[in-house]
């Protein structure tokens, strides 16, 4: 239990500590140390859960089972690697006069604040607290998006704030309806919002009210996941904020939103006989997958392009969770992990590429491999991995999702494959001139720490070739939880 409390308290302490000392040069290192310790405690937590099964805190406020513990570890890991990347990156930003020291205090404390809210959202047992921490995550990042104070950044932050605010409000209405339905069935008023209690009595919940609740929650958290009709804030927020923030936003926040959506779907499936929730998620997922793939072709800004790639992959995961079979769920879980690792690695290299070229517009970034091979090759291999080429893990999860779709919905594999091909064409069409070609004059390599990229791409490669046994067992437990039966 102490591991659980520590995992939450360290980021909380981080917020306060860095609020005072954020502007110092050592702040970057403190940030890394904090994220590192969170990662270690999350590993410790994972081990305890792995042996002891689901864990409920004494006050029944926190609830850890196989599903969210692996997300906690993933969040902590990616936040550690991004912290390592952000230290040199932010110092370069401060040196080149784009950011003042005072704003670094805000940046570092909000970084830890963002960590805290996400870990809280993952570990909480109470649906209400889940909503509060999601809202908290939005508030923490909105100031980061407008950190550079350029007109575009302010515009992106405003849109991000309003759209996510409205989205989250829908989710609140959904939570209220959920509570309304649960309160009639569960005698004790206070634990009518606790996940474990709700799962226990899922079958008695009133179906009509739950469907309405699911619709509101789908639109609410769907905005945070970036499903297509509601995705407009995502490309702006990712491209205008500082790159470490985009890496976390793209890699982790979308996962947490999808996690909450899947939690609700597990509940709704319990009470509803028909698979309405699954069909809705599949519809939204496929729509996002196709539209985002097409969007990739028209991008001017490198970070916007990769944020559309995130929308596309989130669409694929929502589609997979929508199908719901054990195979699809296992594939979706694997895809969540692999996508986070690869996407944050890509955003790290994109950050360095933007610093090398001095701009984010794709037409002005040239000859990366020649200027700095580590950045150039990192971006190239990262994009090859995210495009779903075999030796890397993304192919394995796409392979599983495709085979699951082939079993249950054979005709849906055609749009999936067409979408994959279009997305691949869009990504590589822009990547090619950036990575290859002669070095434009005056372009010098940048001080860059490519360790996190190497680490994460190696992990994705390892997952691609052979999924380790303990990870497979981990995913299997989570799949049994979500889909009811094991894929093995």
């Amino acid at each position, binding site marked *: 239990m102490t591991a659980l409390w520590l995992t939450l308290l360290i980021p909380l302490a981080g917020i306060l500590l860095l609020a005072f000392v954020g502007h110092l040069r050592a702040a970057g290192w403190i940030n890394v140390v904090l994220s590192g310790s969170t990662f270690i405690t999350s590993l410790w937590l994972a081990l305890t859960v792995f042996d002891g099964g689901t864990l409920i805190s004494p006050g029944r406020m926190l609830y850890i089972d196989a599903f969210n513990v692996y997300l906690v570890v993933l969040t902590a890991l990616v936040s550690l690697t991004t912290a390592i990347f952000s230290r040199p990156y932010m110092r370069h930003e401060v040196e080149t006069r784009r950011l003042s020291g005072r704003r670094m205090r805000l940046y570092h404390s909000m970084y830890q604040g963002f960590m805290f809210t996400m870990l809280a959202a993952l570990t909480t047992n109470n649906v209400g607290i889940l909503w509060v921490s999601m809202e908290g995550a939005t508030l923490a990042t909105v100031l980061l998006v407008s950190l550079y104070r350029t007109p575009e950044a302010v515009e992106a932050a405003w849109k991000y704030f309003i759209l996510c605010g409205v989205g989250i409000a829908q989710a609140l209405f959904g939570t209220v309806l959920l509570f309304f339905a649960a309160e009639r069935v569960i005698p004790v008023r206070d634990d009518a919002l606790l996940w474990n209690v709700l799962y226990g009595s899922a079958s008695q919940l009133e179906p009509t009210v739950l469907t309405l609740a699911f619709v509101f929650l789908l639109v609410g958290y769907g905005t945070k996941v970036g499903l297509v009709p509601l995705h407009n804030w995502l490309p702006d927020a990712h491209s205008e904020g500082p790159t470490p923030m985009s890496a976390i936003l793209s890699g982790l926040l979308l996962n947490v939103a999808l996690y909450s959506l899947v939690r609700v779907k597990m509940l709704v499936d319990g009470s509803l006989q028909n698979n309405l929730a699954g069909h809705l998620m599949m519809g939204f997922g496929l729509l996002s997958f196709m539209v985002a793939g097409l969007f990739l072709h028209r991008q001017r800004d490198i970070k916007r392009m990769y944020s559309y790639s995130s929308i596309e992959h989130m669409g694929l995961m929502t589609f997979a969770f929508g199908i719901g079979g054990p195979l699809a769920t296992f594939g979706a879980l694997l895809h969540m992990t692999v996508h986070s690792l690869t996407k944050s690695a890509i955003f790290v290299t994109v950050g360095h590429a933007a610093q090398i070229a001095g701009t984010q517009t794709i037409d002005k970034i040239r000859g990366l491999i020649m200027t700095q091979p580590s950045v150039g090759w990192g971006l190239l291999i990262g994009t090859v991995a995210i495009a779903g080429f075999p030796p890397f893990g993304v192919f394995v999860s796409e392979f599983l999702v495709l085979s699951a779709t082939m079993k249950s919905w*054979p005709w849906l594999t055609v749009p999936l494959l067409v979408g994959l091909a279009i997305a691949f064409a869009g990504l590589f069409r822009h990547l090619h001139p950036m990575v*290859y070609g002669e070095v434009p004059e005056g372009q010098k390599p940048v001080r860059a720490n490519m360790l996190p990229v190497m680490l994460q791409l190696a992990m994705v490669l390892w997952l691609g*070739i052979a999924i380790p046994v303990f990870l497979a067992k981990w995913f299997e437990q989570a799949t049994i939880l979500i889909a009811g039966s094991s894929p093995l």
Partner: protein
Amino acid sequence: MSPLILAYLSLFCALASGITALNAERYPWLLRYGSSIWLGLCGLLAVGAGGWSLIDEISLIDQVRLGLPWLHWHLKLDPLSGFFFIVVGLLVLAVSLYAPGYLQEYVHSKIRSLASLGLFTGLFVFGMLLVLLADDAFVFMVAWELMSVSSYFLVVYQHQHSANRRAAFLYLLMAHMGGLAILLGFGVLASFGGSFTFDAMRAANLSLAWASIAFALTFFGFGMKAGMVPLHAWLPEAHPVAPSHISALMSGVMLKIAIYGLIRFTYDLLGDIQWQWGLAVLIIGAASTLLGVLYALMQHDLKRLLAYHSVENIGIILMGLGLSMIFINAGRPALGVLGLIAALYHTLNHALFKGLLFLGAGAVLHASHENDLNNMGGLIRRLPQTAIFFLIGCLAISGLPPLNGFVSEWLTFQAALQAPSLASGVLRTIIPITAALLALSAALAAACFVKVYGVAFLGVARSHKVAHAHEVDIGMRAGMGLLAVLCVIFGIFPAAVINLIDAIPQMLLGVKPVSATAQGWLWLTPISPRVASYSAPLVVIGIVLFALISYVLMRAHPVKFRRGYPWDCGFGALNSRMQYTATAFSMPIRRIFAPVWDITEQIEELHNPTQPQRTEIIRHQLHVQDKSWSRLYEPIGMLVIAAARRVSRIQTGSIHTYLAYSFFTLLLLLWVVT
């Protein structure tokens, strides 16, 4: 010690060659010699493994604890993959001999990273060999796309020129689409068979409709990778830009892996073959043959010409397969086996002579830094031994009697000639027409390679660099020599080769082509001695005999030789620009088959301003474009861009519209749900 162990060793050597080249930046000799030695070993072991499994006709199965938790890697080495192991092994061996000499030039130019060249060559060979061993869809796809990605990195190796980048992008895009189509084809089979292992797929019984869908998908996927006509646009772009020994590997072997995939899927996994499939394969094969050679004729870049020519030879292989499919469905397995043997034999031959020609082109490039035929000429005096090997390659690829190209085309003709035994009249008319197309393409191929050899090696040097070229070093000549000797041997002893190959039809169709070598090693009688017989050894003995007699007679009456000026109609002073260039050579054929290409030809006459009627300079510009670009590839590109433009209207930038989107989504969903 079993063939499978040998196969694993060759896989290991391929990986080792990749890894040893990792720090080639500081020690360039590592790349030139270290990884080449490993590659040579890998080639030898591959030939050993393939040969052993073919001769003993045994197939070995194994599981490796990698891959998905419930689908470990299934590997299998049977005669079919053994045969392709030999094809890959032979060419890898030749390339490993050739590479040290060729890479010497790359070592001195500082701007390119040698480590990536060595690493990805190793991965490329590893990927190809692993595809041959794969026994379940997962390993197959992993190896397949590993092969595509590593060859992509090799194609984009010289990425300064934007044309290379465009070619590499097109190549990877089409390889990816091909891969996805194959994955979908496997998906169809897996959904009926239960799991992704090939054994489950073999047991799956599909309805005719689903089997045809699966076949269409995989034919699309493998055809794209092999360079079938409508989907071939990437091949002439990608192969020439890679370093020559890599384009030899790609053109010689990678296309064959696609053919292996097609045979494995259709004959092994699908089982009962429909004649409609065979007809489709035959027609596309004939189209590929004819259009491939016609496009090749118009090129004057040597390596692009050879790449286009691979399209033609793949067409011939597809025709062989198509014929065998039709005969198998018509209940004539003996003839089906003949078609299959013809296709497999041509696969082996094409790998050999195309590899030889690409290595030859590489040697010319290495010696004279010239790739355009119109600037070459008279190389036979500067590179005598390369000229001999290149001549053998040209003879083989044009399908002229004593050499191996002729034997496989002859077998394809014999298979086509058995059309009357079929029941349906339609097939009986279409097959001879396709055979006539094959004859036309064979003759055009001969014309094409007369052009190549005549313009490049014979006549007078057309540019300074070519006039001062120097013979390539011993390693490169050894590589080419090995392939040339193999071409000649496989041409002279076809019966022996067919004895080696007949284990495959035995495994796939359960029928041994007993009649082909019934009359001993001397004669090749595909159906029966009465129907057709060809004895290559006797033909060679006849040629040798005649050479001896004429040599003796010439010795008996020696006559003096004198060198004089060639006939110049009395105008005098002939110079090298008066010779027929490659474009001029192919002009008659271009005017006859004009509708096949998009030809833009301009003749500008620059008049002297003072005397308007006297023409100072006449400039002739010709651009021949492959029609498939304007008909198929650009329209698709436009379609995607247009769709993207329409879709991007969503992101209007005003917050109100965004709010409206989420508002109406909510209302719509609420309305739908209640």
